[in-house]
């Protein structure tokens, strides 16, 4: 279970998060929606400790992340970055198997490679991609390699920052199914950021909307359409008319 309590974060004079409260129960899939630049990626990075919040607490399974052993803590996580963030000096398969070749999970290279190729297949990439470099792949392919890397060590908690942006509709469907499968079969806790409403419906148990630095609304995905919140309604319908300003 992940709990965010009153998280604040500013960059210089820019206040991004102004008191985010959010709870993600174990084994559930939470989707965060919200306008571009509202601080969704920053929120994920706060949980991982990549950005230190100015105020507030983050608890994972009841203990403050600041008090947990950093290595043990990170070993439970997988993260897909918005820009994929692949290591461009390494082959694709070495990227995917990065965790499997170092530290506690270290195993022989050949075995790590096998696993990497299997994970690549799961995100819809053929084995011949394995020996290419990230720079040789298209944006959508890089994104999927990033996804394969995030799930390679079968983490308990997985964060996906816009897993389907830049993918064609069929591939989006494959990825949505994959995320759903990881949550259901592996019992993982997932936190996904997406702008794609089809994805939201496909992968979410619960949805939270971030707006104005706070969680504007959160609830089960089934209530999203009928929640009556004008911000959520406008966002879901993608209308230019409504309380959310088009210029921000």
């Amino acid at each position: 279970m992940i709990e965010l309590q009153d998280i604040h974060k500013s960059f210089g004079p820019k206040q991004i998060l102004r008191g985010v409260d959010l709870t993600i129960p174990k084994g559930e899939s939470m989707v965060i929606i919200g306008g571009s630049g509202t601080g969704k990626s920053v929120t994920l990075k706060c949980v991982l400790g990549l950005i230190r919040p100015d105020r507030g607490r983050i608890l994972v399974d009841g203990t403050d992340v600041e008090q947990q052993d950093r290595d043990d803590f990170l070993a439970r996580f997988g993260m897909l970055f918005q820009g994929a963030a692949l290591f461009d000096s390494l082959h694709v398969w070495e990227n995917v198997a990065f965790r499997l070749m170092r530290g506690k999970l270290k195993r022989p290279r050949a075995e790590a490679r096998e696993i990497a190729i299997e994970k690549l297949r799961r995100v819809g990439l053929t084995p011949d991609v394995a020996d290419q470099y990230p720079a040789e792949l298209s944006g959508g392919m890089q994104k999927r390699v990033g996804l394969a890397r995030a799930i390679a060590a079968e983490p308990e908690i997985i964060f996906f920052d816009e897993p389907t942006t830049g993918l064609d509709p069929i591939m989006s469907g494959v990825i949505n199914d994959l995320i759903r499968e990881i949550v259901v079969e592996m019992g993982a806790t997932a936190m996904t950021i997406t702008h794609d409403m089809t994805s939201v419906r496909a992968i979410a148990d619960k949805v939270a909307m971030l707006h104005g630095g706070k969680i504007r609304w959160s609830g089960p995905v089934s209530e999203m359409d009928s929640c009556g919140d004008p911000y959520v309604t406008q966002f879901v319908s993608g209308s230019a008319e409504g309380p959310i300003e088009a210029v921000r």
Partner: protein
Amino acid sequence: MGLLSPIAALGRAVLSGLAWIGRLSIFAAQTVRHIFTPPWYPRELGHALLAIGWLSLPVVGMTAIFTGAALALQIYIGSARFSAEAVVPQITAIGMVRELGPVLCGLMVAARVASSVAAEIGTMKVTEQIDALVTLSTHPMKYLTAPRVLAATLSMPLLVAIGDIIGIMGGYLVATQRLDFNASTYITNTVNILDAGDILSGIVKGAVFGFLIALMGCYQGMQSGRGAQGVGRATKTAVVAASVLILASNYLLTEVFFSA
């Protein structure tokens, strides 16, 4: 108020300079700690040795041979004024081994390595690859900084030694081909003048310069601002700062070694 503002500006510059030195010292101390504590990444060290040491050889060789040649020529012209041409081999050897070898080698490697390391790490920072390393339970300083700094510290002394030899050879070629020196006397004179201290000082200087070069590259890369502009600025600062640090520390080391 208006009168005091230049003083305030000076004060700010001094303070930020001191803060910079403080941060760099902490970074250096952390780097050294990471070099000596596991986990180690031998594969990364291998890559770094190749990129920093081996691939710097051509640049170092070219720099050394032309410098040695010009040096021998200048010493000949200068010493001919008081008919002391015979000192050409001795002075070329000492000038090359004690000062020009390490310094020029250091500056050339700084231009090559500090820039590429800063650009590489800066780009990794900007594209969130450093964050990704952290989420994959890998310490960025252990994985990126430690191997590069270790590789540069180990390979610079060798590069300096090779540079010294090639530089002396440059002088030898000019002296024997252009200036009618006797080949075997030239070599004997060179060998006789050099003692272990000369060579050792050059090697120590090389190690220090290597450490500084890779450290600056890594530090500026890690501190890189956002976007391409941030990486560009980090690269420039790394080369300038590494060069200045090399020249300053060279003076200090010369004081330590030779001002007895």
